């Protein structure tokens, strides 16, 4: 394979970069105060790469799931600070950028097996949540648009299940904790709430328990053994003719 062929689709080569610039026009961004001209339409992440930066920190899944690329920005002459993910937010002209690839926020260590899901469990482990002044800054800084303050209030009241539900989409980027005037570590608090709910509050599956016993008593061993020993033609027939269960309605995965 030639070098040319190895040029990654995502990476603009010179010609393509020039085309892109012509089509989209360039804008000016400031990376920690330093000016760069980049094509409009790129994400903050790709704009920095276009400018010549190579990520070590501040870049993870590149798809909005991992929370590695939290970015704080302010557009020139504007008052408001913006909070977003570098991999999801498109650059704007005169944007001043700083990434926050790490958040100092100690997680309390606990043994989930030794906890009980009482009204005071979360408060005992993270007592600082009682200091919440309801300023809502955490909610405003959440790139996932989660009602962060609301789930903290639920945690204060000992409503574990509700706290878990509201916080479910949290990608644990930590911007909430960095902005909080009461020094709450919101994303660690909600992690505890979700584990307490999943382990103790949600009703468990009886089907699963039953199947587990069957597997442990080796109920399926001989049947699978038979399939493994089948010649290829035979198992192909069996596969082709297997009955497909009617689909449930609802979202299917990928």
């Amino acid at each position, binding site marked *: 394979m030639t070098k040319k062929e190895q040029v990654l689709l995502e990476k603009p080569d010179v010609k393509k970069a020039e085309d892109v610039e012509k089509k989209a026009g360039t804008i000016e961004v400031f990376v920690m105060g330093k000016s760069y001209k980049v094509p409009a339409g790129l994400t903050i992440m790709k704009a920095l790469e*276009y400018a010549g930066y190579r990520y070590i920190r501040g870049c993870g899944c590149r798809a909005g799931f991992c929370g590695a690329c939290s970015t704080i920005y302010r557009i020139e002459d504007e008052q408001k600070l913006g909070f977003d993910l570098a991999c999801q937010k498109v650059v704007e002209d005169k944007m001043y950028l700083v990434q926050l690839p790490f958040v100092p926020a100690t997680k309390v260590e606990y043994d989930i097996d030794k906890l009980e899901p009482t009204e005071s469990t979360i408060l005992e482990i993270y007592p600082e949540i009682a200091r919440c002044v309801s300023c809502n800054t955490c909610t405003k800084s959440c790139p996932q648009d989660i009602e962060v303050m609301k789930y903290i209030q639920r945690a204060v009241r000992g409503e574990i299940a509700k706290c878990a539900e509201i916080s479910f989409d949290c990608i644990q980027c930590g911007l909430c904790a960095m902005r909080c005037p009461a020094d709450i570590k919101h994303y660690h608090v909600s992690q505890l709430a*979700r584990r307490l709910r999943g382990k103790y509050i949600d009703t468990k599956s009886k089907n699963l328990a039953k199947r587990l016993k069957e597997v442990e008593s080796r109920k399926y061993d001989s049947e699978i053994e038979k399939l493994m020993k089948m010649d290829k033609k035979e198992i192909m027939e069996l596969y082709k003719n297997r009955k497909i269960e009617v689909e449930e309605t609802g*979202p299917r995965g990928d």
Partner: protein
Amino acid sequence: MKTTDGYPDYMMKSIKLVEEKREKNMSKPVKPMSMKSREDVLSKYHPDYMKGTKRELKVGIDKGTNLYNGIVDLLEAKPVLDPKDVDLSKIDYDVDLLIIGGGGAGTVAALFAYESGVPKDKILIVTKLRHGDANSMMAQGGIQAADRPEDSPALHYLDIYGGGHFTNKPELARSLALDAPGIISWHEELGVMYDRHEDGEFQELSGGGTCRNRMHSCKDYSGMELMRNIRDKARNLEIPVLEFCPMAELLMDDKGQLAGGVAFNLETFEYYVIRAKATILATGGSGRLHLANYPTTNHYGATGDGLIMAYHIGANLLDLDTIQIHPTGDAYPEPLVGILSTEKIRGLGAIPLNKNGDPFVFPLEPRDVESAMFIQECKQGKGIVTPTGMPGVWLDSPMIDIIHGEGTTETKLAGEVRKFKRFGIDMAKHPILVYPTLHYQNGGVEINEKTETKIPGLFAAGEVSGGVHGKNRLMGNSLLDFNVFGRRSGIYAAKYVKKAKIGKLTLNHLDKYNKMLEQAKIKPAKSAPIILPEYRGEMAISRALDIF
């Protein structure tokens, strides 16, 4: 750039054609293709069948096999580490168990090794990025386990094996199916919030190639919820993790056993010599190699390092002549390029259309065929090219509400709707642009049921391993894979540690590998593993210092 409803003017013009022809397109569906025309388009446009995407490997234990060019390039590259740069008499970390990779497989392995008796301060996870930065975190769909009365592990086995075109190692497919219920039960104990019915039973859906509904999910954040729980447990136990320290090469001893590895601190540029009685390779996949030039759904660190390091010490590889591409990766807007849009959009009636608004393929051909047809349309100039140069075809999502009634898109595809809304696109009103995307590394380092590789002391689990899925993986079996084989690797490595005695450390295998390259008359232009993908623009590269 000026946009209307999220699209620039020239794309909007194409959308107008889509709208004008919508009624006609809905009344005159394209018929499924014949086997002959399927084969024809696959041979021309699917990377697995196309000429030029693969070549024969000229060096090492798998010499003579055909693999993707991007993989062969790295296997035939010079080992990145020069043995002269490392002082093996100075041990930085002396542990029982080294785990390479802080994603799903690696973290699960650490938890079970600890439970099997390896003290936590004798375990070390090294990882390229942060603990948890992995494809595991990004999986949306769900995890398969046959736990309903109308299902059975034997049926799950049959699905795995048939889905893999009967090329899987049968004993690995058996482990995957039989261990699954135990894994879900372990997740219940950890506190994973699975989607459930009111009576506590799981909401289980179907997936491509499954004969029973057995897909367990956590909204459309299934991988993230699993990973959050598993990682939280590891953090509570204080299992040591070295972040931003990818492995550069593996270490052997003078008895031919695996003896640890040399890690590279990405921030201080120091090497760390790690001596270990057993090592688990859990480095994940290779989407960021952009094989056959595809965009990818994979995370930043997925550069196939594990394959390369394992090959350098003589471990063999399986099924790297296939890659999994998914037809409906997003092509626009730019931030979403490569990210997946679910197959269900087509399932609900949306039809793929070209830039003239004309249909060109039956919407539900098998994934490989559908992908090849999209690629053909774009190569023939009938696709839409985005402002950043990405080609794509329309998926006419507004058809869904017309067929099933207003509001269907919002309720049945809530996650997708939210994703596009962020960029001002209402997929119930306008079509979305899609192009096939590189999703999964089907094969890898060959393992057995105990996750042992050919090399004593080296275990492998997760996407880096080969044999579990054969030449094609089914949806919902990768989250299962990292749990099942991550667990097994932790347990079996812990057993191995008890008896292992490490001799004198050596990097002689690298000198040997360089000699092999020389003998095969290969003059490597690059070195491997590559550790991070290169995304800087050409102009930036030419003025950058080569820091690695």
